[in-house]
Protein backbone atom coordinates (compact mmCIF):
# COMPACT_ATOMS: atom_id res chain seq x y z
CA UNK A 1 0.00 0.00 0.00
CA UNK A 2 2.73 2.47 1.01
CA UNK A 3 4.77 1.62 -2.05
CA UNK A 4 1.74 2.05 -4.33
CA UNK A 5 0.92 5.39 -2.74
CA UNK A 6 4.46 6.58 -3.37
CA UNK A 7 4.39 5.38 -6.97
CA UNK A 8 1.03 7.09 -7.56
CA UNK A 9 2.39 10.33 -6.15
CA UNK A 10 5.40 9.98 -8.42
CA UNK A 11 3.18 9.43 -11.46
CA UNK A 12 1.12 12.45 -10.59
CA UNK A 13 4.24 14.54 -10.08
CA UNK A 14 5.56 13.50 -13.49
CA UNK A 15 2.28 14.53 -15.06
CA UNK A 16 2.29 17.88 -13.36
CA UNK A 17 5.86 18.54 -14.44
CA UNK A 18 5.63 17.41 -18.04
CA UNK A 19 2.00 17.81 -19.00
CA UNK A 20 0.54 20.31 -16.62
CA UNK A 21 -2.36 19.64 -14.25
CA UNK A 22 -5.11 20.03 -16.85
CA UNK A 23 -4.15 17.19 -19.20
CA UNK A 24 -3.22 13.52 -19.22
CA UNK A 25 -3.88 12.81 -15.55
CA UNK A 26 -3.51 9.03 -15.59
CA UNK A 27 -5.86 8.40 -12.66
CA UNK A 28 -9.60 8.95 -12.24
CA UNK A 29 -11.61 10.73 -9.55
CA UNK A 30 -11.03 8.05 -6.89
CA UNK A 31 -7.25 8.04 -7.51
CA UNK A 32 -7.24 4.22 -7.50
CA UNK A 33 -5.26 1.76 -9.62
CA UNK A 34 -2.25 2.35 -11.84
CA UNK A 35 -2.00 3.25 -15.51
CA UNK A 36 -2.47 0.32 -17.91
CA UNK A 37 0.34 0.94 -20.38
CA UNK A 38 0.42 -1.15 -23.59
CA UNK A 39 3.62 -2.85 -22.43
CA UNK A 40 2.14 -3.75 -19.05
CA UNK A 41 -0.96 -5.43 -20.48
CA UNK A 42 0.46 -6.91 -23.70
CA UNK A 43 0.22 -10.54 -22.50
CA UNK A 44 -3.49 -10.14 -21.78
CA UNK A 45 -4.48 -7.90 -24.71
CA UNK A 46 -5.19 -10.83 -27.03
CA UNK A 47 -8.57 -10.14 -28.59
CA UNK A 48 -8.90 -10.13 -32.37
CA UNK A 49 -11.71 -8.39 -34.26
CA UNK A 50 -13.20 -9.19 -37.69
CA UNK A 51 -11.43 -6.16 -39.19
CA UNK A 52 -8.12 -7.73 -38.15
CA UNK A 53 -7.48 -5.42 -35.22
CA UNK A 54 -5.38 -7.33 -32.71
CA UNK A 55 -3.92 -9.88 -35.12
CA UNK A 56 -0.25 -10.47 -34.30
CA UNK A 57 2.74 -10.94 -36.65
CA UNK A 58 3.46 -14.44 -37.90
CA UNK A 59 1.99 -16.72 -40.55
CA UNK A 60 0.98 -20.32 -41.05
CA UNK A 61 0.18 -22.65 -43.94
CA UNK A 62 -2.38 -25.39 -44.43
CA UNK A 63 0.42 -27.96 -44.45
CA UNK A 64 1.87 -26.69 -41.18
CA UNK A 65 -1.60 -26.64 -39.71
CA UNK A 66 -2.15 -30.28 -40.59
CA UNK A 67 0.84 -31.17 -38.41
CA UNK A 68 -0.28 -28.96 -35.52
CA UNK A 69 -3.83 -30.32 -35.71
CA UNK A 70 -2.70 -33.95 -35.67
CA UNK A 71 -0.51 -33.36 -32.63
CA UNK A 72 -2.67 -31.02 -30.56
CA UNK A 73 -6.30 -31.15 -31.70
CA UNK A 74 -7.23 -34.43 -33.39
CA UNK A 75 -7.51 -36.46 -30.18
CA UNK A 76 -10.69 -34.59 -29.25
CA UNK A 77 -11.93 -33.21 -32.59
CA UNK A 78 -11.19 -36.24 -34.81
CA UNK A 79 -8.44 -36.81 -37.37
CA UNK A 80 -10.23 -34.74 -40.01
CA UNK A 81 -12.17 -32.45 -37.67
CA UNK A 82 -15.24 -34.68 -37.87
CA UNK A 83 -15.75 -34.43 -34.11
CA UNK A 84 -15.16 -36.74 -31.20
CA UNK A 85 -15.29 -35.98 -27.51
CA UNK A 86 -15.27 -32.32 -28.59
CA UNK A 87 -17.14 -30.38 -31.27
CA UNK A 88 -17.30 -31.27 -34.92
CA UNK A 89 -15.39 -28.60 -36.86
CA UNK A 90 -15.92 -29.55 -40.49
CA UNK A 91 -18.87 -29.88 -42.85
CA UNK A 92 -22.55 -29.13 -42.42
CA UNK A 93 -22.81 -26.47 -45.09
CA UNK A 94 -26.39 -26.24 -46.31
CA UNK A 95 -27.91 -27.83 -43.19
CA UNK A 96 -28.77 -24.78 -41.09
CA UNK A 97 -32.38 -24.57 -42.28
CA UNK A 98 -32.95 -28.32 -41.93
CA UNK A 99 -34.35 -30.35 -39.06
CA UNK A 100 -30.82 -31.49 -38.17
CA UNK A 101 -28.56 -28.44 -38.49
CA UNK A 102 -24.83 -29.12 -38.23
CA UNK A 103 -23.03 -26.07 -36.84
CA UNK A 104 -19.32 -26.06 -37.67
CA UNK A 105 -16.56 -23.60 -38.49
CA UNK A 106 -17.43 -24.09 -42.16
CA UNK A 107 -21.21 -24.05 -41.97
CA UNK A 108 -21.89 -21.57 -39.18
CA UNK A 109 -18.99 -19.37 -38.05
CA UNK A 110 -19.32 -15.91 -39.64
CA UNK A 111 -15.73 -14.69 -39.21
CA UNK A 112 -12.37 -16.42 -39.74
CA UNK A 113 -10.81 -14.02 -37.23
CA UNK A 114 -12.99 -15.55 -34.52
CA UNK A 115 -11.35 -18.91 -35.18
CA UNK A 116 -7.91 -17.41 -34.61
CA UNK A 117 -9.06 -15.53 -31.49
CA UNK A 118 -10.68 -18.60 -29.94
CA UNK A 119 -7.87 -21.06 -30.69
CA UNK A 120 -5.28 -18.65 -29.36
CA UNK A 121 -7.12 -17.95 -26.10
CA UNK A 122 -8.70 -21.30 -25.25
CA UNK A 123 -7.17 -24.18 -27.21
CA UNK A 124 -5.86 -26.80 -27.03
CA UNK A 125 -8.12 -27.68 -24.13
CA UNK A 126 -5.33 -29.42 -22.22
CA UNK A 127 -2.89 -26.51 -22.65
CA UNK A 128 -4.57 -23.19 -23.51
CA UNK A 129 -2.40 -20.32 -24.74
CA UNK A 130 0.48 -22.71 -25.49
CA UNK A 131 0.48 -22.45 -29.30
CA UNK A 132 2.66 -19.87 -31.01
CA UNK A 133 0.92 -17.21 -33.07
CA UNK A 134 2.21 -18.84 -36.26
CA UNK A 135 0.85 -22.21 -35.11
CA UNK A 136 -2.55 -20.57 -34.56
CA UNK A 137 -2.46 -19.11 -38.09
CA UNK A 138 -1.52 -22.56 -39.39
CA UNK A 139 -4.22 -24.51 -37.61
CA UNK A 140 -6.76 -21.86 -38.66
CA UNK A 141 -5.64 -22.28 -42.27
CA UNK A 142 -5.93 -26.07 -42.01
CA UNK A 143 -9.48 -25.95 -40.58
CA UNK A 144 -10.59 -23.46 -43.22
CA UNK A 145 -9.11 -25.73 -45.87
CA UNK A 146 -10.87 -28.81 -44.48
CA UNK A 147 -14.08 -26.83 -44.90
CA UNK A 148 -13.30 -25.97 -48.52
CA UNK A 149 -12.89 -22.27 -47.74
CA UNK A 150 -9.19 -21.76 -48.57
CA UNK A 151 -7.01 -23.74 -51.03
CA UNK A 152 -4.41 -26.36 -50.04
CA UNK A 153 -1.54 -23.93 -50.62
CA UNK A 154 -3.01 -21.12 -48.53
CA UNK A 155 -0.82 -19.23 -46.07
CA UNK A 156 -2.59 -17.01 -43.56
CA UNK A 157 -1.32 -13.95 -41.74
CA UNK A 158 -2.66 -10.70 -40.31
CA UNK A 159 -3.50 -9.33 -43.75
CA UNK A 160 -5.02 -12.45 -45.29
CA UNK A 161 -7.08 -13.88 -42.42
CA UNK A 162 -9.63 -11.02 -42.21
CA UNK A 163 -10.13 -11.27 -45.99
CA UNK A 164 -11.28 -14.92 -45.85
CA UNK A 165 -14.91 -15.10 -47.04
CA UNK A 166 -16.90 -17.28 -44.65
CA UNK A 167 -19.97 -19.02 -46.16
CA UNK A 168 -22.34 -18.00 -43.36
CA UNK A 169 -21.11 -14.41 -43.06
CA UNK A 170 -24.61 -13.04 -43.70
CA UNK A 171 -26.37 -15.63 -41.55
CA UNK A 172 -26.80 -13.59 -38.37
CA UNK A 173 -29.62 -11.17 -37.55
CA UNK A 174 -30.19 -8.99 -34.47
CA UNK A 175 -32.47 -10.07 -31.62
CA UNK A 176 -36.07 -9.84 -32.86
CA UNK A 177 -37.78 -10.34 -29.52
CA UNK A 178 -40.37 -10.01 -28.12
CA UNK A 179 -41.59 -12.08 -31.03
CA UNK A 180 -45.03 -13.07 -29.78
CA UNK A 181 -48.00 -11.22 -28.37
CA UNK A 182 -49.92 -11.99 -25.23
CA UNK A 183 -52.70 -14.46 -26.10
Amino acid sequence: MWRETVSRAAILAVCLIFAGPASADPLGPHRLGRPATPDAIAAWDIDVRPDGAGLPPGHGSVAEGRTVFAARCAACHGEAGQGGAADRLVGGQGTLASAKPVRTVGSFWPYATTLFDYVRRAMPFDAPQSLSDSEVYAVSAYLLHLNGIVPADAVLDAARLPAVAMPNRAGFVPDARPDMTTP
Partner: protein
Amino acid sequence: MPPSPVPLFGRRSFLAGALGVSGGALAAEGPLQVPVWSREQGRGVASPGYGVPSSFERLARKPRTVPAFPGAASTSTPHQHLHGTITPNGLHFERHHGGVPAIDPGQHRLVVHGLVARPLILTMDDLVRFPSVSRLHFLECSGNTPAWQTTNPAWTVQDTHGLLSCAEWTGVELATLLDEVGVKPEASWLLAEGADAAAMTRSLPLSALDGAILAYAQNGEALRPEQGYPLRLFLPGLEGNLSIKWLRRIKLGDRPFQTREETSKYTDLMPDGTARQFTFTMEAKSVVTTPSGGHQLKEPGAYEISGLAWSGRGRITGVEVSVDGGASWRPAVLQEPVLSRCLTRFRLPWRWDGGPALIQSRATDETGYRQPTREALVAARGTNSIYHYNGVYGWQVAAGGSVRHVA
Protein backbone atom coordinates in the same frame (compact mmCIF):
# COMPACT_ATOMS: atom_id res chain seq x y z
CA MET B 1 -33.66 -44.89 -15.18
CA PRO B 2 -36.07 -42.58 -13.35
CA PRO B 3 -34.98 -41.41 -9.92
CA SER B 4 -36.81 -42.95 -6.99
CA PRO B 5 -39.66 -40.76 -5.76
CA VAL B 6 -38.83 -38.37 -2.97
CA PRO B 7 -41.02 -36.83 -0.27
CA LEU B 8 -41.81 -33.15 -0.18
CA PHE B 9 -39.48 -32.43 2.75
CA GLY B 10 -36.07 -33.87 3.39
CA ARG B 11 -34.76 -37.14 2.07
CA ARG B 12 -35.79 -39.51 4.84
CA SER B 13 -38.85 -41.66 4.48
CA PHE B 14 -39.81 -41.04 8.09
CA LEU B 15 -40.17 -37.35 7.31
CA ALA B 16 -42.33 -38.00 4.31
CA GLY B 17 -45.52 -37.13 6.10
CA ALA B 18 -44.53 -33.62 7.13
CA LEU B 19 -47.13 -32.16 4.80
CA GLY B 20 -49.54 -35.05 4.69
CA VAL B 21 -49.18 -37.81 7.25
CA SER B 22 -52.19 -40.06 7.17
CA GLY B 23 -54.22 -40.84 10.23
CA GLY B 24 -53.19 -44.44 9.84
CA ALA B 25 -49.52 -43.50 9.85
CA LEU B 26 -49.99 -41.43 13.00
CA ALA B 27 -51.67 -44.31 14.74
CA ALA B 28 -48.88 -46.63 13.68
CA GLU B 29 -46.34 -44.27 15.20
CA GLY B 30 -48.01 -44.42 18.59
CA PRO B 31 -47.75 -41.85 21.39
CA LEU B 32 -44.97 -39.26 21.16
CA GLN B 33 -41.72 -40.21 22.88
CA VAL B 34 -39.07 -37.84 24.25
CA PRO B 35 -36.23 -38.33 21.77
CA VAL B 36 -32.59 -38.68 22.69
CA TRP B 37 -31.71 -35.20 21.41
CA SER B 38 -33.98 -33.72 24.09
CA ARG B 39 -32.27 -35.64 26.90
CA GLU B 40 -28.60 -34.84 26.33
CA GLN B 41 -26.52 -31.80 25.40
CA GLY B 42 -25.95 -31.13 21.74
CA ARG B 43 -22.61 -30.36 20.20
CA GLY B 44 -20.81 -27.17 21.12
CA VAL B 45 -20.35 -23.94 19.21
CA ALA B 46 -18.06 -23.59 16.22
CA SER B 47 -18.16 -27.26 15.32
CA PRO B 48 -17.37 -26.54 12.58
CA GLY B 49 -16.45 -22.86 12.42
CA TYR B 50 -18.08 -22.49 9.03
CA GLY B 51 -21.46 -24.14 9.51
CA VAL B 52 -22.84 -26.83 7.22
CA PRO B 53 -26.37 -28.18 6.63
CA SER B 54 -27.95 -30.79 8.90
CA SER B 55 -26.59 -34.28 8.36
CA PHE B 56 -30.15 -35.25 7.43
CA GLU B 57 -30.01 -33.02 4.36
CA ARG B 58 -28.47 -34.40 1.20
CA LEU B 59 -28.77 -31.53 -1.27
CA ALA B 60 -26.31 -31.32 -4.12
CA ARG B 61 -25.83 -29.75 -7.51
CA LYS B 62 -25.56 -32.24 -10.31
CA PRO B 63 -25.12 -32.36 -14.06
CA ARG B 64 -28.09 -33.43 -16.18
CA THR B 65 -25.87 -35.80 -18.14
CA VAL B 66 -22.36 -37.06 -17.54
CA PRO B 67 -20.09 -34.48 -19.17
CA ALA B 68 -17.32 -35.45 -21.59
CA PHE B 69 -15.13 -32.73 -20.06
CA PRO B 70 -15.85 -32.08 -16.36
CA GLY B 71 -14.30 -28.62 -16.67
CA ALA B 72 -16.55 -27.65 -19.57
CA ALA B 73 -19.89 -28.57 -18.12
CA SER B 74 -22.73 -27.43 -15.90
CA THR B 75 -24.47 -28.46 -12.70
CA SER B 76 -27.89 -27.32 -11.64
CA THR B 77 -29.66 -26.10 -8.51
CA PRO B 78 -32.08 -28.53 -6.75
CA HIS B 79 -35.11 -26.24 -6.70
CA GLN B 80 -37.39 -29.16 -5.81
CA HIS B 81 -35.87 -29.06 -2.31
CA LEU B 82 -35.36 -25.31 -1.79
CA HIS B 83 -37.59 -22.67 -0.21
CA GLY B 84 -38.00 -18.94 -0.65
CA THR B 85 -35.93 -17.25 -3.34
CA ILE B 86 -32.28 -17.10 -2.24
CA THR B 87 -30.04 -19.89 -3.49
CA PRO B 88 -27.52 -21.10 -0.90
CA ASN B 89 -24.03 -20.34 -2.20
CA GLY B 90 -22.99 -23.99 -2.31
CA LEU B 91 -26.01 -24.80 -4.49
CA HIS B 92 -25.73 -21.97 -7.03
CA PHE B 93 -25.70 -23.47 -10.51
CA GLU B 94 -22.39 -23.77 -12.35
CA ARG B 95 -21.46 -23.42 -15.99
CA HIS B 96 -17.78 -23.43 -16.83
CA HIS B 97 -15.95 -23.68 -20.15
CA GLY B 98 -12.42 -24.24 -18.84
CA GLY B 99 -12.84 -25.45 -15.28
CA VAL B 100 -12.78 -23.47 -12.03
CA PRO B 101 -9.49 -21.59 -11.67
CA ALA B 102 -7.85 -21.28 -8.25
CA ILE B 103 -7.12 -17.55 -8.27
CA ASP B 104 -5.01 -15.86 -5.59
CA PRO B 105 -6.89 -12.60 -5.00
CA GLY B 106 -3.64 -10.86 -4.13
CA GLN B 107 -2.39 -11.56 -7.64
CA HIS B 108 -5.64 -10.95 -9.50
CA ARG B 109 -5.84 -7.79 -11.62
CA LEU B 110 -8.58 -6.05 -13.57
CA VAL B 111 -7.50 -4.14 -16.68
CA VAL B 112 -9.83 -1.51 -18.16
CA HIS B 113 -8.59 -0.09 -21.44
CA GLY B 114 -9.37 0.56 -25.10
CA LEU B 115 -11.38 3.67 -25.95
CA VAL B 116 -10.90 5.30 -22.55
CA ALA B 117 -9.06 8.39 -21.38
CA ARG B 118 -7.33 6.71 -18.44
CA PRO B 119 -6.61 2.97 -18.93
CA LEU B 120 -6.15 1.37 -15.52
CA ILE B 121 -4.90 -1.78 -13.81
CA LEU B 122 -6.75 -2.39 -10.54
CA THR B 123 -6.11 -4.74 -7.65
CA MET B 124 -8.86 -6.26 -5.51
CA ASP B 125 -7.75 -3.90 -2.75
CA ASP B 126 -8.35 -1.01 -5.15
CA LEU B 127 -11.78 -2.29 -6.17
CA VAL B 128 -13.21 -2.67 -2.66
CA ARG B 129 -12.39 1.00 -2.00
CA PHE B 130 -14.86 2.21 -4.62
CA PRO B 131 -18.48 2.97 -3.61
CA SER B 132 -20.36 -0.34 -3.57
CA VAL B 133 -23.92 -1.63 -3.97
CA SER B 134 -25.77 -4.82 -2.99
CA ARG B 135 -28.67 -6.08 -5.09
CA LEU B 136 -30.80 -9.21 -5.27
CA HIS B 137 -30.99 -10.73 -8.75
CA PHE B 138 -31.53 -14.03 -10.46
CA LEU B 139 -28.97 -15.49 -12.82
CA GLU B 140 -30.14 -17.90 -15.53
CA CYS B 141 -28.14 -19.70 -18.18
CA SER B 142 -29.77 -19.15 -21.56
CA GLY B 143 -29.49 -22.92 -22.06
CA ASN B 144 -31.74 -23.53 -19.05
CA THR B 145 -34.73 -25.78 -19.84
CA PRO B 146 -33.69 -28.13 -22.67
CA ALA B 147 -37.19 -28.45 -24.07
CA TRP B 148 -36.93 -27.29 -27.68
CA GLN B 149 -36.63 -30.84 -28.99
CA THR B 150 -36.40 -33.32 -26.18
CA THR B 151 -38.37 -34.30 -23.16
CA ASN B 152 -37.83 -36.91 -20.50
CA PRO B 153 -40.48 -37.94 -17.98
CA ALA B 154 -37.74 -38.66 -15.44
CA TRP B 155 -36.57 -35.05 -15.37
CA THR B 156 -36.86 -33.17 -12.11
CA VAL B 157 -37.11 -29.39 -11.91
CA GLN B 158 -33.38 -29.50 -11.17
CA ASP B 159 -32.88 -31.02 -14.62
CA THR B 160 -35.30 -28.71 -16.42
CA HIS B 161 -34.90 -25.37 -14.61
CA GLY B 162 -31.80 -25.79 -12.44
CA LEU B 163 -29.50 -23.51 -14.46
CA LEU B 164 -31.17 -20.75 -12.47
CA SER B 165 -30.18 -19.31 -9.11
CA CYS B 166 -30.68 -16.12 -7.12
CA ALA B 167 -28.41 -14.25 -4.75
CA GLU B 168 -27.53 -10.89 -3.26
CA TRP B 169 -24.59 -9.59 -5.27
CA THR B 170 -22.27 -6.94 -3.85
CA GLY B 171 -19.68 -4.97 -5.73
CA VAL B 172 -18.91 -1.79 -7.65
CA GLU B 173 -21.33 -0.52 -10.24
CA LEU B 174 -19.73 -0.87 -13.66
CA ALA B 175 -20.80 2.72 -14.35
CA THR B 176 -18.59 3.88 -11.45
CA LEU B 177 -15.57 2.19 -12.97
CA LEU B 178 -16.35 3.47 -16.46
CA ASP B 179 -16.45 7.00 -15.01
CA GLU B 180 -13.09 6.35 -13.40
CA VAL B 181 -11.43 5.48 -16.72
CA GLY B 182 -13.34 8.07 -18.77
CA VAL B 183 -15.09 6.35 -21.69
CA LYS B 184 -14.43 8.13 -24.97
CA PRO B 185 -17.44 9.36 -26.95
CA GLU B 186 -16.79 7.00 -29.87
CA ALA B 187 -17.00 3.90 -27.63
CA SER B 188 -20.23 1.92 -28.02
CA TRP B 189 -19.35 -1.68 -27.04
CA LEU B 190 -17.14 -3.37 -24.51
CA LEU B 191 -15.42 -6.72 -24.33
CA ALA B 192 -15.38 -8.56 -20.99
CA GLU B 193 -12.80 -11.29 -20.50
CA GLY B 194 -12.21 -13.93 -17.82
CA ALA B 195 -8.94 -15.20 -16.37
CA ASP B 196 -9.98 -18.86 -16.64
CA ALA B 197 -8.55 -21.41 -19.07
CA ALA B 198 -11.32 -20.51 -21.54
CA ALA B 199 -10.43 -16.81 -21.29
CA MET B 200 -14.18 -16.42 -21.74
CA THR B 201 -15.11 -13.32 -23.70
CA ARG B 202 -18.37 -11.61 -24.62
CA SER B 203 -19.19 -8.27 -26.24
CA LEU B 204 -21.80 -5.96 -24.74
CA PRO B 205 -23.26 -2.75 -26.13
CA LEU B 206 -22.96 0.09 -23.63
CA SER B 207 -26.76 0.41 -23.87
CA ALA B 208 -27.19 -3.02 -22.21
CA LEU B 209 -25.33 -2.24 -19.00
CA ASP B 210 -28.24 -1.03 -16.84
CA GLY B 211 -27.51 -2.15 -13.28
CA ALA B 212 -24.27 -3.93 -14.15
CA ILE B 213 -22.06 -4.73 -11.16
CA LEU B 214 -18.44 -5.76 -10.79
CA ALA B 215 -19.32 -8.26 -8.06
CA TYR B 216 -16.93 -9.54 -5.43
CA ALA B 217 -19.47 -10.91 -2.96
CA GLN B 218 -22.44 -13.26 -3.05
CA ASN B 219 -24.94 -13.55 -0.19
CA GLY B 220 -22.62 -11.73 2.15
CA GLU B 221 -19.39 -13.65 1.59
CA ALA B 222 -16.74 -13.49 -1.09
CA LEU B 223 -17.79 -15.05 -4.38
CA ARG B 224 -17.50 -18.80 -4.48
CA PRO B 225 -14.76 -20.03 -6.86
CA GLU B 226 -17.47 -21.47 -9.13
CA GLN B 227 -19.04 -18.02 -9.33
CA GLY B 228 -15.92 -16.16 -10.37
CA TYR B 229 -13.81 -15.60 -7.26
CA PRO B 230 -12.50 -13.02 -6.72
CA LEU B 231 -14.37 -10.85 -9.27
CA ARG B 232 -17.13 -11.30 -11.81
CA LEU B 233 -19.26 -9.14 -14.03
CA PHE B 234 -22.93 -9.37 -13.08
CA LEU B 235 -25.56 -8.25 -15.59
CA PRO B 236 -29.09 -8.32 -14.13
CA GLY B 237 -31.71 -9.99 -16.30
CA LEU B 238 -29.36 -10.99 -19.11
CA GLU B 239 -28.27 -14.47 -20.17
CA GLY B 240 -25.84 -15.88 -17.64
CA ASN B 241 -22.90 -16.34 -20.00
CA LEU B 242 -22.57 -12.56 -20.29
CA SER B 243 -21.78 -12.21 -16.58
CA ILE B 244 -18.12 -13.06 -17.13
CA LYS B 245 -16.56 -14.83 -14.16
CA TRP B 246 -12.96 -14.41 -12.94
CA LEU B 247 -13.09 -11.02 -14.70
CA ARG B 248 -9.64 -9.82 -15.69
CA ARG B 249 -10.17 -7.33 -18.52
CA ILE B 250 -12.67 -4.87 -19.96
CA LYS B 251 -11.87 -3.28 -23.31
CA LEU B 252 -13.94 -0.45 -24.74
CA GLY B 253 -14.47 -0.47 -28.49
CA ASP B 254 -16.69 0.91 -31.23
CA ARG B 255 -18.23 -2.38 -32.47
CA PRO B 256 -18.81 -5.94 -31.26
CA PHE B 257 -15.75 -8.14 -31.10
CA GLN B 258 -17.56 -11.23 -32.53
CA THR B 259 -16.16 -13.78 -30.12
CA ARG B 260 -16.74 -17.51 -30.45
CA GLU B 261 -19.33 -17.43 -27.65
CA GLU B 262 -21.47 -14.79 -29.38
CA THR B 263 -21.33 -16.29 -32.88
CA SER B 264 -21.04 -20.08 -32.92
CA LYS B 265 -22.60 -20.41 -29.44
CA TYR B 266 -25.28 -18.44 -27.61
CA THR B 267 -27.02 -17.53 -30.86
CA ASP B 268 -30.49 -18.80 -31.65
CA LEU B 269 -31.01 -20.69 -34.92
CA MET B 270 -34.32 -19.95 -36.64
CA PRO B 271 -36.22 -22.24 -39.04
CA ASP B 272 -34.94 -20.31 -42.09
CA GLY B 273 -31.32 -21.03 -41.14
CA THR B 274 -30.49 -17.55 -39.90
CA ALA B 275 -29.38 -17.14 -36.30
CA ARG B 276 -30.47 -14.41 -33.93
CA GLN B 277 -27.45 -12.78 -32.35
CA PHE B 278 -27.01 -10.77 -29.15
CA THR B 279 -30.23 -12.19 -27.70
CA PHE B 280 -29.39 -11.03 -24.21
CA THR B 281 -32.63 -10.68 -22.24
CA MET B 282 -34.06 -13.57 -20.25
CA GLU B 283 -37.80 -13.22 -20.87
CA ALA B 284 -40.56 -13.84 -18.29
CA LYS B 285 -40.73 -17.43 -17.10
CA SER B 286 -42.01 -19.50 -14.21
CA VAL B 287 -42.05 -23.06 -12.96
CA VAL B 288 -43.78 -24.97 -10.20
CA THR B 289 -41.20 -26.41 -7.82
CA THR B 290 -43.60 -28.16 -5.40
CA PRO B 291 -44.97 -30.56 -6.35
CA SER B 292 -42.65 -31.30 -9.25
CA GLY B 293 -40.98 -34.16 -11.07
CA GLY B 294 -39.87 -36.97 -8.79
CA HIS B 295 -42.00 -35.90 -5.82
CA GLN B 296 -44.42 -38.39 -4.30
CA LEU B 297 -47.70 -37.20 -2.75
CA LYS B 298 -48.68 -39.51 0.10
CA GLU B 299 -52.44 -39.15 0.04
CA PRO B 300 -55.26 -36.87 -1.10
CA GLY B 301 -55.70 -33.70 0.91
CA ALA B 302 -54.16 -30.29 1.54
CA TYR B 303 -50.98 -29.25 -0.26
CA GLU B 304 -49.37 -25.97 -1.23
CA ILE B 305 -48.43 -25.45 -4.85
CA SER B 306 -45.31 -23.30 -4.89
CA GLY B 307 -42.91 -22.11 -7.52
CA LEU B 308 -40.62 -19.43 -8.90
CA ALA B 309 -41.21 -16.66 -11.43
CA TRP B 310 -38.77 -14.18 -12.92
CA SER B 311 -38.24 -11.75 -15.78
CA GLY B 312 -35.17 -10.07 -17.18
CA ARG B 313 -37.33 -7.08 -18.11
CA GLY B 314 -38.36 -6.09 -14.58
CA ARG B 315 -40.85 -7.16 -11.95
CA ILE B 316 -43.25 -10.06 -12.05
CA THR B 317 -46.81 -8.71 -11.84
CA GLY B 318 -48.72 -11.96 -11.73
CA VAL B 319 -48.51 -15.73 -11.83
CA GLU B 320 -51.44 -17.97 -12.70
CA VAL B 321 -51.62 -21.65 -11.84
CA SER B 322 -53.63 -24.37 -13.52
CA VAL B 323 -54.23 -27.85 -12.11
CA ASP B 324 -56.26 -29.04 -15.11
CA GLY B 325 -53.73 -28.72 -17.92
CA GLY B 326 -54.59 -25.13 -18.76
CA ALA B 327 -58.38 -25.43 -18.95
CA SER B 328 -58.68 -22.98 -16.06
CA TRP B 329 -56.23 -20.68 -14.28
CA ARG B 330 -56.17 -19.16 -10.78
CA PRO B 331 -53.97 -16.30 -9.58
CA ALA B 332 -51.22 -17.31 -7.17
CA VAL B 333 -50.07 -15.19 -4.23
CA LEU B 334 -46.74 -13.46 -4.84
CA GLN B 335 -44.33 -13.31 -1.90
CA GLU B 336 -43.33 -9.72 -1.15
CA PRO B 337 -41.11 -7.94 -1.80
CA VAL B 338 -41.37 -8.47 -5.55
CA LEU B 339 -38.07 -7.19 -6.91
CA SER B 340 -36.98 -6.32 -10.42
CA ARG B 341 -34.98 -9.01 -12.23
CA CYS B 342 -35.14 -11.24 -9.15
CA LEU B 343 -36.79 -14.56 -8.36
CA THR B 344 -40.35 -14.19 -7.05
CA ARG B 345 -41.87 -17.01 -4.99
CA PHE B 346 -45.54 -17.74 -5.75
CA ARG B 347 -47.90 -19.95 -3.79
CA LEU B 348 -51.41 -21.35 -4.07
CA PRO B 349 -53.22 -23.65 -1.60
CA TRP B 350 -54.49 -26.81 -3.29
CA ARG B 351 -56.56 -29.77 -2.27
CA TRP B 352 -55.60 -32.85 -4.24
CA ASP B 353 -58.63 -35.08 -4.81
CA GLY B 354 -56.47 -38.12 -5.54
CA GLY B 355 -57.07 -38.10 -9.29
CA PRO B 356 -54.77 -37.12 -12.16
CA ALA B 357 -53.83 -33.44 -12.21
CA LEU B 358 -51.67 -31.50 -14.67
CA ILE B 359 -50.07 -28.58 -12.81
CA GLN B 360 -48.74 -25.59 -14.77
CA SER B 361 -47.83 -21.96 -14.14
CA ARG B 362 -47.56 -18.88 -16.33
CA ALA B 363 -45.98 -15.56 -15.38
CA THR B 364 -46.63 -11.99 -16.52
CA ASP B 365 -44.11 -9.17 -16.08
CA GLU B 366 -44.44 -5.41 -15.77
CA THR B 367 -44.11 -4.92 -19.53
CA GLY B 368 -47.33 -6.92 -20.00
CA TYR B 369 -45.46 -9.84 -21.57
CA ARG B 370 -46.92 -13.20 -20.57
CA GLN B 371 -44.93 -16.43 -20.57
CA PRO B 372 -45.85 -18.22 -23.81
CA THR B 373 -47.09 -21.72 -24.40
CA ARG B 374 -44.75 -24.22 -25.99
CA GLU B 375 -46.87 -24.06 -29.14
CA ALA B 376 -46.47 -20.28 -29.42
CA LEU B 377 -42.72 -20.51 -28.89
CA VAL B 378 -42.25 -23.21 -31.52
CA ALA B 379 -44.49 -21.34 -33.98
CA ALA B 380 -42.26 -18.27 -33.64
CA ARG B 381 -38.84 -19.91 -33.47
CA GLY B 382 -38.98 -23.51 -34.57
CA THR B 383 -37.12 -26.13 -32.53
CA ASN B 384 -33.43 -25.46 -33.27
CA SER B 385 -32.89 -22.42 -31.03
CA ILE B 386 -31.18 -24.34 -28.17
CA TYR B 387 -31.28 -21.20 -26.00
CA HIS B 388 -33.95 -19.02 -24.36
CA TYR B 389 -36.73 -21.56 -23.87
CA ASN B 390 -39.30 -19.96 -21.55
CA GLY B 391 -42.47 -21.87 -22.34
CA VAL B 392 -45.14 -22.94 -19.86
CA TYR B 393 -44.04 -26.15 -18.15
CA GLY B 394 -46.16 -28.90 -16.68
CA TRP B 395 -46.03 -31.59 -14.01
CA GLN B 396 -48.43 -34.52 -14.15
CA VAL B 397 -49.68 -35.85 -10.82
CA ALA B 398 -50.80 -39.45 -11.35
CA ALA B 399 -53.62 -41.13 -9.45
CA GLY B 400 -51.09 -42.80 -7.13
CA GLY B 401 -49.46 -39.48 -6.23
CA SER B 402 -46.30 -39.79 -8.30
CA VAL B 403 -45.27 -36.62 -10.14
CA ARG B 404 -43.67 -36.65 -13.59
CA HIS B 405 -42.80 -34.14 -16.27
CA VAL B 406 -45.01 -34.00 -19.32
CA ALA B 407 -44.29 -32.04 -22.48
